[in-house]
């Protein structure tokens, strides 16, 4: 199929001759890939504890080289840094893809996991455990995941039933309403249990401090499903960009594609919240940055490159958050905003 008509209003001012755009996109992917590799290397090599580089390599490749690092170094690399780096990659990619799917399916540049109520739902799910039932702390990620999905399901139900079902405006308004209900619930819990509020603040600020492999193992199947769904949605979203009537004439059901995109975004955003708390910034800014950098809104470019960019940005943000005041850690959310927003604003000034 042709992507000539897939340029979306978002970043629409970035038209350029096709061959040049193509080279530009290749350059964007190449630079982001190099940045990602550098970020992963930094994430494994740097931390609050200084581990010699040869110990890092031996921990990762000891089975190949036959060298065995000191047990503590090995524990730090394999049980703390490696799962954390993987979490950063997965969460960053998931939020980037979730934002791209929502902006692509709703045709709204402000669409993000917040808009479909997922963020509010996941936050409420986490607060239920942290504030109401601290004894169930082991269930924190699953509760965030479950309530994020519940919020998205409520939004879908409200917007896909009755008159004018499936309309974008109705969906966004339903999302805002459902999100408000869960946000109010979160505020109420924090007011009722003020002495437990510091725990809530830590979670809400976003952090990749995990319990190691266990949490990732629990959430990975959901995220895997979300990613697979996203891959399958890239081309249908391009057809949707031509307008609902054209998409329908091409054999694509706009309502089904939107519902599937929202479902995938909900799974990805809820899974991310389960692993790392609230990092909503990535979901809205990363896809825009990718469109601005690549000069296109083609979803076969925007969706995978948003994954690449989100993973890179979150990994860099996490390295900074855990090293700048080591051995103490800062929340990654504000750190990522400090790194990402200046870049985004610079691109925005150049492009618009």
């Amino acid at each position: 199929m042709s992507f000539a008509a897939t340029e979306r209003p978002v970043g629409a001012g970035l038209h350029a001759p096709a061959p040049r755009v193509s080279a530009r996109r290749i350059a964007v992917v190449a630079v982001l890939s190099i940045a990602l590799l550098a970020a992963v290397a930094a994430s494994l090599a740097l931390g609050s504890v200084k581990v010699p580089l040869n110990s890092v390599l031996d921990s990762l490749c000891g089975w190949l080289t036959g060298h065995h690092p000191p047990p503590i170094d090995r524990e730090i690399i394999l049980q703390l840094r490696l799962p954390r780096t993987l979490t950063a990659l997965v969460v960053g990619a998931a939020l980037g893809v979730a934002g791209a799917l929502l902006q692509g399916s709703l045709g709204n540049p402000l669409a993000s996991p917040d808009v479909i109520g997922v963020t509010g739902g996941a936050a409420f799910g986490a607060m239920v455990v942290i504030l109401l039932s601290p004894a169930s702390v082991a269930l924190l990620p699953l509760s965030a995941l479950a309530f994020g999905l519940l919020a998205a399901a409520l939004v879908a139900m409200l917007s896909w039933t009755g008159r004018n079902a499936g309309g974008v405006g109705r969906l966004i308004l339903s999302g805002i309403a459902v999100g408000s209900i869960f946000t109010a619930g979160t505020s109420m819990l924090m007011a009722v249990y003020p002495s437990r509020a510091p725990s809530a603040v830590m979670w809400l600020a976003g952090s990749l401090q995990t319990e190691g492999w266990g949490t990732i193992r629990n959430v990975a199947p959901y995220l895997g499903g979300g990613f697979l769904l996203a891959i399958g949605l890239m081309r249908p979203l391009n057809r949707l960009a031509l307008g609902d009537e054209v998409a329908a004439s091409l054999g694509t059901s706009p309502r089904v594609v939107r519902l599937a995109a929202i479902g995938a975004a909900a799974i990805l955003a809820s899974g991310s919240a389960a692993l790392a708390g609230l990092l909503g910034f990535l979901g809205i800014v990363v896809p825009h940055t990718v469109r601005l950098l690549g000069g296109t809104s083609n979803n076969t470019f925007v969706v995978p490159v948003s994954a690449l960019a989100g993973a890179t940005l979150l990994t860099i943000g996490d390295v900074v958050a855990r090293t700048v005041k080591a051995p103490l850690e800062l929340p990654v959310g504000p750190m990522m905003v400090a790194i990402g927003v200046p870049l985004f604003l610079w691109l925005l000034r150049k492009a618009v």
Partner: protein
Amino acid sequence: MLLPPLARRLLAPLLLAVALAAIAIAGAPGAAHAATPERVVAITPFTANILAQLGVRPVAVASPAAGEQGLSSALNGVARLKLSHPNGPNLEQLVALRPDALFSSPTWRAGTPRIQRLGIKVYDSLDPQRLGTVPIAITKIASIVGKGPQGTALATRVQAGYRGAQKDITRHPRVLLAMGLAQYTLAILRNSWGGDIITAAGGNLVTKEIKPIAGSGQDAVVGNLSNEAVVRMNPDVIIVVPHGSPSDVPTIAKYYRKFAPWRTTKAARTGQIYVPTDDLLLQATSDPAALIRKVRSQYLHN
């Protein structure tokens, strides 16, 4: 301006009468009342218990977050106030009690100006943030409530008690003291109440060299510690003070004893991860000697 002769004659006696009235008012029971408050409210366990030990019965005390066991039995029957962040007591409930003075703490300092505007004297710096300031706080509280001599005696007794509790320490295990906040290791740093108690009990606080991110105040005594650092510090003992009711503690303790990032530490390997049912390591107690003895016998075994 010239006054008529009659007015001039009356002016001197009038001024004298005003002066006498002012002196009389100043010496009246009401003035003494302002200097030595009779109706006091204490919203921290330390100030409430010290008042009780000085023989002053507050008109209300705060319900302790960690349960009633933190309050002296002499305070049974005293009205309980619920506190909420960040201001502390509900102002309407507080005003209804008609207190002259309120003993608060830096935790609730945000509410101090609003309470002061109601004409209530607020003392929010007398809840000790360090072990060494306990005797000073006791003498100041005693002086405010007009129990100076009793306060001096109590302060001397408390100080002698906690000094005595530090004798004959046999070993100095490396200790990590943290607040139990889900998967975050919010460690208590040096210059804190909990840090002082651990040190007084013979513990070697593993976070003592860490510089806090916040420059001063209560936020300067805690920090979100990297679990990599915990593995490298390898504490002998980990004490986690959780949020939650005492009934939740067994489940919370199970969580931290199996907490994967700490699994290689000596504390985890030797089963020395402890979760207290109270928050005495987070805020001042009127009997630090008992707390030090408890830490030594139950957690540090020294």
